[in-house]
């Protein structure tokens, strides 16, 4: 009995080592092999400026560029599908696309049934003060500018702030409620309170664990460049309001 158990444990140990040697994890549907073999990465793009956008019908934005770079590393080209998030998540379920990007957050209701990547960037929304000033301890009666339709508005109102919705947030005077990378880009000092926190992820089909590992390794390595590009876009005065608004 005892001998049998020992043999069992030993066998299991060997099995584990053997498996470990041959490149776990693997994909259930061989997504990564297929991308490398066919040289095509099918990517879904959710328009979400400044993360992703379209310029003259071509995908732009830091995440779109990162996807192109990932494809290049794998020796593939990107075949883009531009669609709303819900449509692309459905496509992921059916394995019609290999990865979906566009400032998608870990809170997205679809990602639980799919292969959610590792949160590579955590973004927080704060109230920021112009250079040389600080955000007052109490926002009671303070005037704060927010982007139209931003969820920060009602929260600030509940705190007693006077909220002004402005189209061009980057030109608004005084306090502004914005993402940390925007505040950094404008040289603003962020206040303590967090109005909203989101973890950004890339999403792949369920069960494609080797592909997920590849995507995660890539995107974690590229978190800093992506953040820098976001910061630059804020500095350049692009305000991410309505994603479908054509500013040019």
């Amino acid at each position, binding site marked *: 009995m005892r001998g049998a158990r020992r043999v069992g444990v030993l066998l299991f140990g060997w099995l584990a080592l053997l498996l470990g040697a041959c490149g776990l994890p693997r994909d259930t549907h061989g997504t990564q092999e297929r991308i490398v073999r066919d040289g095509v990465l099918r990517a879904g793009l959710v328009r979400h400026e400044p993360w992703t956008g379209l310029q003259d019908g071509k995908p732009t934005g830091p995440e779109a560029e990162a996807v192109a770079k990932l494809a290049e590393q794998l020796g593939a080209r990107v075949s883009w599908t531009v669609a709303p998030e819900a449509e692309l998540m459905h496509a992921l379920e059916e394995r019609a696309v290999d990865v979906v990007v566009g400032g998608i957050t870990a809170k997205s209701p679809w990602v639980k049934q799919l292969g959610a990547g590792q949160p590579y960037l955590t973004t927080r929304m704060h109230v920021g003060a112009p250079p040389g000033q600080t955000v007052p301890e109490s926002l009671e009666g303070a005037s704060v500018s927010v982007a139209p339709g931003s969820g920060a508005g009602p929260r600030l109102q509940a705190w007693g702030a006077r909220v002004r919705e402005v189209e061009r947030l980057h030109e608004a005077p005084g306090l502004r409620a914005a993402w940390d990378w925007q505040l950094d880009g404008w040289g603003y000092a962020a206040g303590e309170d967090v109005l909203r926190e989101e973890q950004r992820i890339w999403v792949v089909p369920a069960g494609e*664990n080797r592909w997920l590992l590849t995507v995660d390794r890539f995107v974690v390595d590229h978190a800093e460049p992506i953040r820098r590009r976001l910061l630059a876009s804020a500095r350049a005065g692009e305000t991410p309001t309505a994603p479908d608004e054509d500013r040019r």
Partner: protein
Amino acid sequence: MSWRQRRRRAGHARGPVDPEDLPDDKRRLLKRAQRLEAWSLAYLASAIVVIYLTLGASQAMKAAWLEDLLSLIPPISFLVGSKVAHRKPSAEYPYGYHRAVTVAYLVGSVALLFMGTWLFVESALKLVRAEYPSIGTTQLFGHTLWMGWLMLAALLWSAIPSVLLGRAKLPLAESLHDKVLHADALMNKADWLTAVAAMLGVLGIGMGWWWADAVAAGVIALDIAWDGQRHLRTALGDLMDRTPRTLDSKHAEPLPRRIHEALCGLDWVEAAQVRVREDGHVFCADVRLVPKERGPELVTRLGNAAADLKRLDWRLRDVLLVPVDRLG
């Protein structure tokens, strides 16, 4: 409150414990068992935390986690039961507190049965719906690592110390005749099987076999439910005062036969009928006997016989001898 003070208070609270309850050597064993169970609790808590942190989307990991969570029940029942069960009978509870252990046993087994069944149904649904489990990555010392490796490490931690604890508890359970401790020891010993099943599930996901995870979880769930029904049947039997059986429920306990033989060996006893029931970890015997003569010495004889019978086995707590005209 300092640790020492708390100890003293705990000692004080144990005042009403029957000092005659356990023989000296057994009391030492009980202390050891309590220490082992306290260690088990601490270890299990660590295993539960470690597995929870690496849970991910794996159903097999969830099953292993739940199994660890449920295996908290026996040590807790044992520790609480061993404090409560040895209290002296009171006006409120004239038969003492020995059944507290059986009650704990019943509650624990029902929990096992239901959780096991529920988990099995959930795993089966995952198979039917062909849900593909995704195991992502995590950052460890600056490296992006597949979570599966961490899961395997966590499962190893939940398996190996558990087996050692189980092996240490088993002989204690036998010499203390404690069912909860026995069930706990067996669960610990079998825990490595659960861990191996969950490991195969995780490795299966790694191999790209999406079904391996749900199958492993289903096997673990069945194991939990099976344990549950086994313990439930034992607990119900105890509450129904079934004829005592040995700890593993495989054989009839020889004590009733030995009592009967001892009584029939007495020259003043014509016939005797023995019923023995189990109160937690002790036995109580009800004996009806037909004496050959009914002189004034009968009461003394009955008293002596009861004292002699109690010496047959330390677990025999109570012997009630009732003289009758004839056996019904």
